[in-house]
Each structure stands twice: as structure tokens, then as C-alpha cells.
């Protein structure tokens, strides 16, 4: 009606229409694009977040009343190689089982990607696991074992096949795929188990002492392999071990457990250089750290009422524990300390010795040369006091390294 017979008015209307539609189109496009961008970034963020695991106030008691875990708190970041280490029976497996959902916990929450999964069954936690004894089905071939979970979930055959090939390639087992586990070596079996964990696309892999059944050389090899795979794929690994070397060499973060309690969480070097207490200090390092009972008096540490070590550290007089790593002791003819050689271990590239300094106290020393000593010889040595650790009598860390530094 408006443009009836009036071409110009029609034309103007058409122009207006075109302008409106074009801008509308642009607006819609922009909105769409932003939505896509925002959503992708959200999704991306979600994936990122998903891999964070938080343990909040975990407590676990078994029926016999024994408290196996007391108040475990930890945050495991995306892509971390996170190690749980501790003596046998310290509760490492229990924590892992709680994360996986194999056992109910008495208190606390397990959070994965900010979602409380405490009540969820294992299959809904989107993780996979590598076991100490491999947990392979003896009647299935390597390939069948690897796609065990995929097959159970009825994943399409071609997808199974493709994933299988990818993962076989990753762990170098292509030519073994039709063998039965019984015909494989321990290392190969564990690689199958690893492949099975990787094939599920879970971003978190739990490992419970996966290398403890292997011999020393193979273990060292597999350590490297697992670590490399984890970094290559960017997955999060929670790894249980009681082997301090594994903890030191593999972990980004290490949780040290003792009788169901966390003693310390930190990077391997933090744990070594600044152990929170004597337990952690004693746990890492071989031979283990010397923990010497000393008295602080007149700006020097007194050991056995016999030896004196000057220090500039500013602390009250009294009883302390001085932590000295065996490699931070040097043998020198006029050393401030001396004692009788009670034990000698030639290693070829160095020597470990033990010296009795009286009053039932021994000092372990590690030197990097070969020593020509016999038992009973008197050894004199100096402590590199600026690398020593100072603990309270109850074993808590007071000062590390430089702060104890001293003049001798």
C-alpha cells in the first residue's frame, strides 16, 4: 500500500530493507560467532578444570576402628605427575582407592573438576588405572585386553581398532598384539596395562606401584617411558610408590604419607632441601640424612659435649636436631669432628662410610672418591654447616640451608 504507484518510495523502502537486513545479518553473525567463541572457550575451560582433583578432609576408618586416613587435603593440578609416597601401610593405596571410588570414605569429599564425586561409582569419575599386578585377563590377547573397557561399553569396532593402533604405537607393542599376556615379560605386561589405561581417553590415570614387580634396570627404563608419555599426552597421573627414587625422579608434586597423615607436600627438591620435619628428611636421600642431637650454646652447636660447631643462626639456647646429609660432610685432616670408622661401602664411583663419634652416635658420610681406609681408623671431618637443616627436638623444621650458615 505504501509504495503503490510510487516507485521512489518503493525504492527508498527497498534500500531501507536492504540496510536493515544487512546489519541484522551482521549482528546475528556477530552474536553467533561470539556465542561459539564463548562456548568453545567455556568448553575448553571445562576440560581444563576437569582434570583438577581436590581431596578435602578425607577420613577413612576400617571396621576394626583403626584410622587409616586422618584429614587428607590436597589439590592435584591438571597435567601434574602427582606422587603418593610412604612406607608400607601408610595409606597410599587407600587414598588412591578413595579417589577411584573403590571404597567408601567415612568423611570428607573428593572433588574432580569442582564436582563432588564422593558418592559416584568409579565408572562415573572418568579415570583409569594401572595396577601393580597388571590385572590382565590371561585368556585374552594383548589387543583384546587393551580394548577391554571399550568393548564392554560397546564402542564401535572401527573406533576400537583405531584407538588400539594408536595406543599400541605409543607403548611400542605393535608386534605383540595377538599374543597372550602369559607369553610376555613383566615389562611388556605392564605396558599392556598402561595401554589399556591410555585407550580409554580418561584424563586422569591412577597408578598403584606399577613398577614394583620389575627388576631394577627395567624399572628405570619404564620410569622414563611413563614420565615421557605423561608429558607428551598432558595427562594427570597420580602415582603410588614406596620407592623414594621414583618419587624424586618422576614427580611434579610429591605427597609424603606417614601412618595415614600427610607429612609434607611439595616438589621433589623442596622435599629434599626443605623437609618439613625429620620424617621427610629421613625419607629421601641415600644413605639417609644424619640427625644429630645438638645443644645450642654461645653461638655454637655442641655435639656429644665433645665437638663444637660455630653458627650465626639466631635462635634460643637449648636442645635441637641438626640434619646433615651425608654428602654435605667433607673428610679433612683437621676436621672439627672425629670418630672411628665402623662401616665402609666402596661403590666404585664413591664411598659410603659410617663413623662412630661416641655416645652411640654414628655419622654417615658420602664422598665421591675411593677411600683407602680400614675399620677402626680414625676419621676426622667437617660438616658443611651452611647446608645443614635445623629441627626442633620434636622434629619440626626451623631453618634450612643458608640460615644455619656458619663459620667454622
Amino acid at each position, binding site marked *: 500500500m505504501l509504495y503503490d504507484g510510487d516507485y521512489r518510495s518503493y525504492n527508498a523502502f527497498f534500500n531501507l530493507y536492504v540496510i536493515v537486513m544487512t546489519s541484522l545479518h551482521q549482528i546475528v553473525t556477530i552474536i553467533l560467532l561470539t556465542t561459539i567463541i564463548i562456548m568453545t572457550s567455556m568448553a575448553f575451560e571445562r576440560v581444563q578444570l576437569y582434570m583438577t582433583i581436590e581431596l578435602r578432609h578425607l577420613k577413612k576408618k576400617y571396621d576394626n576402628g583403626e584410622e587409616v586416613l586422618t584429614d587428607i587435603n590436597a589439590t592435584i593440578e591438571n597435567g601434574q605427575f602427582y606422587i603418593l609416597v610412604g612406607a608400607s601401610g601408610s595409606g597410599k593405596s587407600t587414598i588412591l582407592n578413595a579417589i*577411584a571410588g573403590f571404597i567408601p570414605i567415612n568423611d570428607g569429599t573428593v572433588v574432580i573438576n569442582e564436582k563432588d564425586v564422593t558418592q559416584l561409582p*568409579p*565408572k562415573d569419575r572418568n579415570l583409569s*588405572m594401572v595396577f601393580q*599386578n597388571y*590385572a590382565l*585377563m*590371561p585368556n585374552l590377547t594383548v589387543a583384546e585386553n587393551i580394548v*577391554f573397557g571399550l568393548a*564392554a561399553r560397546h564402542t564401535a569396532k572401527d573406533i576400537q581398532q583405531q584407538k588400539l593402533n594408536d595406543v599400541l604405537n605409543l607403548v611400542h607393542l605393535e608386534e605383540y598384539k595377538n599374543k597372550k599376556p602369559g607369553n610376555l615379560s613383566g615389562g611388556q605386561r605392564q605396558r599392556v596395562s598402561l595401554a589399556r589405561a591410555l585407550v580409554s581417553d580418561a584424563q586422569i590415570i591412577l597408578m598403584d606401584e606399577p613398577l614394583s614387580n620389575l627388576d631394577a634396570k627395567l624399572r628405570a627404563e619404564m620410569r622414563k617411558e611413563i614420565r615421557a608419555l605423561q608429558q607428551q599426552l598432558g595427562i594427570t597421573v597420580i602415582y603410588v610408590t614406596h620407592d623414594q627414587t621414583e618419587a624424586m625422579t618422576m614427580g611434579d608434586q610429591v605427597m609424603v604419607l606417614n601412618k595415614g597423615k600427610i607429612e609434607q607436600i611439595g616438589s621433589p627438591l623442596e622435599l629434599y632441601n626443605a623437609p618439613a620435619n625429620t620424617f621427610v628428611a629421613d625419607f629421601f636421600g641415600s644413605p639417609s640424612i644424619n640427625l644429630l642431637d645438638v645443644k645450642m650454646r654461645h653461638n655454637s652447636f655442641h655435639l656429644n659435649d665433645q665437638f663444637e660447631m660455630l653458627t650465626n643462626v639466631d635462635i634460643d639456647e637449648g636442645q635441637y636436631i641438626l640434619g646433615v646429609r651425608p654428602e654435605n660432610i667433607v673428610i679433612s685432616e683437621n676436621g672439627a669432628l672425629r670418630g672411628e670408622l665402623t662401616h665402609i661401602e666402596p661403590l666404585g664411583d664413591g664411598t659410603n662410610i659410617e663413623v662412630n663419634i661416641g655416645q652411640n652416635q654414628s655419622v654417615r658420610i658420602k664422598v665421591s672418591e675411593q677411600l683407602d681406609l680400614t675399620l677402626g681408623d680414625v676419621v676426622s671431618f667437617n660438616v658443611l654447616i651452611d647446608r645443614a637443616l635445623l629441627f626442633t627436638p620434636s622434629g619440626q623444621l626451623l631453618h634450612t640451608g643458608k640460615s644455619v650458615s656458619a663459620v667454622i
Partner: protein
Amino acid sequence: MQTSNVKKGFRLATLIVLTLLLLLPLFVGISLSLSSSQSIAQGHLLPDHLEFANYVKVFTSTSMTKFLWHSFIISGSVMIGQVILSIMAAYAFVFLEFRFKKAAFILFLSTMMLPFEAQIIPNFATMRDLNLLNTYAAIGLPFLASAFGTFMMKTSFEQIPTALKQLSDIEGLSHFQFATRVVMPYTKVSIITFALYSFLTNWNMYLWPLIATTNDNVRTVQIGLRQLRSQDTASNWGLIMAAIIVSVIPTLLIIFLGQKYFKKGLTNGVIK
């Protein structure tokens, strides 16, 4: 260890004599089954000349074919039933947590010390009242549940590493999937052992099939033999022996096939 050849020969001879003595009744039976009636009547233990007439007669002029068939059906279905029910019950005892599990297990175990012979009177009455006498059900039903089998399956299920259960939980296997993809393949040997053992026991059952049947409709081979014996007393040993040999072939096959399983499986199931 060095053993002299004389000693070795002596031991071997002892073993052979022992075997001959032990299997003598069987040899005599086989020999008679291949003899003619005249030869037996004359008191000959070895056939005058070999003949298979007795075997032909077993299948043509007696009801043995029918009885064998009945035995197959009953032994087979009771075996299947026992294996399935034992696996189900053992699965519950090993892999599931529920209240009164322990009590249920003790109840199960207690049936192992109740002799079946002491239960035949009420069981006969039950079958009579249900109108089931002379049916397969009457002979088979009472034995479908097996405490022994459940116990044996439970013991072997317990050998399955916890890690396999944990793996299955992570991968989200249902109980059915876990049972069929992990538990049963893993304990295949025990299951086969029990199945063979079950078939053997069912095949050789005597007292209950005797009580539960009053005619030939579903009579088993064991009761058939008993009948044959009372009908043909003394007169036809050849035929009876041939029937016996036929009846024992399936069980001997099972024994030979399953010997290595039996030794392991039975001691594991019972002793441990």
C-alpha cells in the same frame, strides 16, 4: 637318584600286578559280555569265541537305550542347573555386599552335613503330593542347588585378583558383564571340573531315582540295570555285563578327560 634296572623292573611289575588285580572285575565283566551264554554256563571266564551278540541284544531286546537317554537328560539338566545356580550363589557371596550374607552362607554350608538319605521320606511325600513321581522333575529337582558346587565356585572366585574387579568397576562393567567377561573365563577350569563332577554324580545316582520312579517312563540307567539283574538272574550274565559296560562308558570318558582337573579342582574345593 640312581635306581638300578632290577629295582625299576620290580616296581613296574608290582604296578602291573596291582592294576590287574584292581581291574580284574572289570576285565571279567568285559570278557563275559563278549561270551556266548553256553560258554558262560560252562563256567568259562574267557569267551570260547568273541561275539558281540550281547551288545546287540542290549540295544534291541532291552529298554537300555531308553534308560540311557533318560539318564542323559537328567544328568545333563541337573548339571546345567547346578553349574548355573552355584555360579549365581557364589557370585553373590564373593562379589556382593548385603546384610545377612554370612548367615546365608552358613545356612548353605550346613546343608553339606545333612545326609540326603535322611530326607527321602518327606521328599517322596512331596513328589507324590505334587503328582511328580515318574517325571524328570522328580528325579532332578532336589539336586539343582549344590552347596558343594557353590563352595567350590566361591573358592575359585576368591582367587580372582581384586584389581580385575576394580578395573571392571572403572570401566563400568555391569554385574552381568563382569560375571561373563571376567569371572567365568578366569575360573573356567574350576567350572569345567565341577560340571564334569556333577554329571558323573548325577549319572551314578541310585537311591533317589529308585524311590522316585515306579515305572519305566523316566527310569535311569542305574535303576534299569538293577531291574535287568533281577529279571535275568544268573541266566544271562553276558547280557547284563554288556549292559553294564555300555552304562559305564560315559563316566569313564569323563574320568579320562577330567583326571587332571579332578585332582586339582576337588582337593582345592574341598580341602581348602
